């Protein structure tokens, strides 16, 4: 038997898939379904939720109360996934999400985490020097705005509902969704026009 650390990852993956089905934990159809759902996660999904929250007060209230239900209301599959919590940016508070322990991330609504989200540097600096970190992203908070860092350590997954930029009055939800980026929903950047 070869060293597991030196085994090619595709062979390990095939072994795990075979064991899952052989032991009756999942069928090959279940695995295909999970892959399809995982691949369907992307920042565009979260952006649709943000844009709707900016244009529909009832939806915004639902999103802040129960992010999982709000995602499902946009036909985003959430079954079997950790609950989604939504952190609202206001005139007084800016939210920044990190997982200092690993890389917990709301994949159903934001997709795969960006590489830097998993880096030791981001994870350490987000709690220790977040204003310096935001500065490197070009994100400067107004004087007096409270910076709240949310360390995603356990069973919830968190996304930020950023503030709607000025100058977008009258825009449709589709136009608004197009300006919401991944970083805006993590809290490292702010939505901007153009």
């Amino acid at each position, binding site marked *: 038997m070869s060293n597991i650390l030196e085994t090619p990852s595709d062979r390990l993956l095939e072994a795990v898939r075979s064991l899952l089905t052989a032991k009756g934990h999942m069928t090959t159809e279940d695995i295909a379904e999970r892959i399809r759902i995982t691949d369907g996660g992307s920042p565009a999904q979260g952006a649709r939720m943000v844009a709707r929250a900016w244009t529909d007060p009832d939806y915004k209230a639902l999103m802040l109360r129960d992010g999982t239900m709000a995602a499902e209301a946009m036909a985003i599959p959430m079954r079997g996934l950790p*609950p989604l*919590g939504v952190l609202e940016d206001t005139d007084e508070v800016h939210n*920044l999400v990190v997982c*200092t*322990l690993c890389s917990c991330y709301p994949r159903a609504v934001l997709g795969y985490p960006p590489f830097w989200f998993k880096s030791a540097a981001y994870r350490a600096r987000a*709690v*220790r*020097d*977040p*204003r*310096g970190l935001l500065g490197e992203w070009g994100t400067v908070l107004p004087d007096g705005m*409270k*910076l*709240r*860092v*949310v*360390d*995603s*350590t*356990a*069973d*919830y997954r968190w996304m930020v509902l950023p503030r709607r930029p000025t100058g977008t009055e009258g825009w449709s939800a589709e136009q608004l969704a197009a300006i919401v980026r991944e970083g805006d929903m993590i809290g490292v950047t702010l939505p901007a026009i153009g």
Partner: protein
Amino acid sequence: MFAPGTQVRVKNDWPELRGPCHIRTPHYVRGETGVVVRHLGDFPNPEDLAFARPAAVRPLYHVRFDPKPFWPEGAAPDELVIEIFDHWLEAA
């Protein structure tokens, strides 16, 4: 159970020193005092799940800390909110 607004202290416990474990409480808040924001729900204890042991369902809270005392030298956030399980908290 802890009501929102309750002052709590994170236990100053280091199971890492006693053997293999899987802990969802970051080192930097062990022994620190914070305030319960709200009860998020009840979840199987990840410390048992990680080892495929039967896992009791435990309350999970959002707890708010003033992080400045942890890292006085940096531009610390104004507040830090962390998910912490009930069995890591004691009334402060």
